[in-house]
């Protein structure tokens, strides 16, 4: 990829074990590292626990064991609001805009924890520049936007807290190819603007083309990780996890 990545991870999940209720654990000693300024992509079959990794990282799910380290601090067991305050934003799967509110209101809600009005205004201006669609449809109802546009509003909203890490859960879900391209372009722009990204995506090949580091997840553990380009070139992985050889 030609990018120099930081040796100390910005976000690290160490030996995470977690499950839902009394069912068998979904994550079994999972360890993932996200360096600063990198896109790390989790790929794997359905049920591997990809979305669960993001829920644990953002505090929506409390791990049964293991540690979450964010920027050198142990944040294990913190709730979503505390994680947001620590600089970790989570863009949920599907469309999570407030449909009956304007794009402006949606974006401003992203900065709800910021008390200083001037900072909120400055951040809103910044995300409007970063996402032209958000700027163009600023006063439109978010529910009237197309799927791809709504996803960009969600990205913009997540950047309002100036996060160190953004967790993206299947950002291309339900989008047409053109909108998918736009969304992945925006993911790269977020990375280039200095935000680390932990990405979960069903469209594994497309995600690995965008990412710096890839992790293949299966049965609750990371089986293989490394530079995303190496994973893409690995024929065995292609057969097992990436839907066959590239055309």
């Amino acid at each position, binding site marked *: 990829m030609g990018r120099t990545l930081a040796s100390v991870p910005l976000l690290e999940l160490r030996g995470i074990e977690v499950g839902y209720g009394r069912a068998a654990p979904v994550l079994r000693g999972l360890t993932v590292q996200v360096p600063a300024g990198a896109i790390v992509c989790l790929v794997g079959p359905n049920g591997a626990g990809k979305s669960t990794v993001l829920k644990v990282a953002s505090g*929506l799910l409390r791990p049964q064991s293991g540690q979450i380290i964010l920027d050198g601090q142990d944040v294990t067991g913190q709730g*979503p*609001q505390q994680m*947001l*305050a620590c600089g970790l934003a*989570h863009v*949920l799967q599907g469309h*999570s805009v*407030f*449909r*009956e*509110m*304007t794009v402006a*209101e949606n974006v*401003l*809600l*992203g900065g*709800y*924890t910021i008390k200083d009005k001037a900072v909120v205004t400055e951040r809103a201006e910044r995300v409007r520049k970063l996402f032209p669609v958000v700027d*163009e449809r600023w*006063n*439109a109802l978010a529910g*009237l*936007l*197309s799927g791809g546009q709504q996803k960009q509003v969600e990205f913009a*909203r997540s950047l309002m*807290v100036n996060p160190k890490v953004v967790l993206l859960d299947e950002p291309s879900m339900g989008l047409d190819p053109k909108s998918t391209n736009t969304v992945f372009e925006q993911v790269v722009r977020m990375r280039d603007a200095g935000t680390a990204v932990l990405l979960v995506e069903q469209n594994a090949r497309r995600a690995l083309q965008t990412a710096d580091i890839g992790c293949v997840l299966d049965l609750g553990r990371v089986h293989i990780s490394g530079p995303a380009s190496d994973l893409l070139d690995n024929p065995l992985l292609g057969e097992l996890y990436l839907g066959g050889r590239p055309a």
Partner: protein
Amino acid sequence: MRSVSKARVWLGLPVLLAGVGLVLSFPSLAPNPYLLSVGIVVLNYAVLSTAWNFMGGFTGYISLGHGALAGLGAYGTALLITKAGMPSFAALFAATAIVALLAIPLGFAALRVRGASFVIVSIALVLILLLVFQSWASLTGGSSGLVVPRPFPQLLRPEHHRVFYYLFAGLLALALLCWWLIDRSRFGLGLKAVREDEDKAESLGTPTFAYKLVIFTVSAAFTALGGGLYALWFGDLDPVFQFSILSGAYMVLMALLGGVRNLFGPVLGALIVGIGLEYFKVEYGNTPLHLVASGLLLAVVVMFMPDGVIPSVSNVFGRFFQPTRASIREVSAEQLREEARR
């Protein structure tokens, strides 16, 4: 937080001024005291449904128990005058403060549940208070009722109505001003996020429970003020009418009819429902026909105007004045080719 377009201001301002003028001149235009009393009833409904709309409109929590809060305001005012010997309006404000304080533990318990569960909890509040106020006859007068001394005993009936008409109009203006200020505030933005999706709002850092509790208390205070002022005007209280699920249901109906997300929605709803109810009472006496009509009206609103009359009419006007509100950006084939080249 929300910007108001110039077109809306230019369209809305004359309508607002005309409405204010009509409200202020109504006592002079009303040909008899009965019609003036109908005006007071409509204003009372408007105050109560606007008070309900602080909770229902901002958070989406449908309370059928607000009749109990109005009843508490009415009985609180009456008891503070008759038992504690307080002056009428001091009793009104003291009763409002007591109801607002009571709303904190009530809200603390009721707001832990959502949706249908919250509705049931709110109904339970009305029924419990009805039983308490009916059976505690030594304090409340029970089913015999409670007579509230008139605050202006020297005034004749038409003058009494005229004074209370303006008091209710002033209270309505205050409630509307508060609603308008909250609607445009950061607090209001958080409340509207609760209405859209409470979990999502929480994940973005909105202190959802604290916000719901604050707005419930504000809503309870205005409801109690409306109930207390009604007690001072009407002068006679009966638990069956004060703690009635029907009065809470009317608040919901009026707000839904006009539009819960609109400042003047509950006022318009109160105008329609208030006049309608009086018409049925005059034409058909003590029959349950007004209940049938209310039920039909609610069905029509839910089926044909789920957002209420004002948003529906605004949408019709919007099609003429805001043609650029289309959801999909229209681009020509040439523009698409240009975008693809880039």
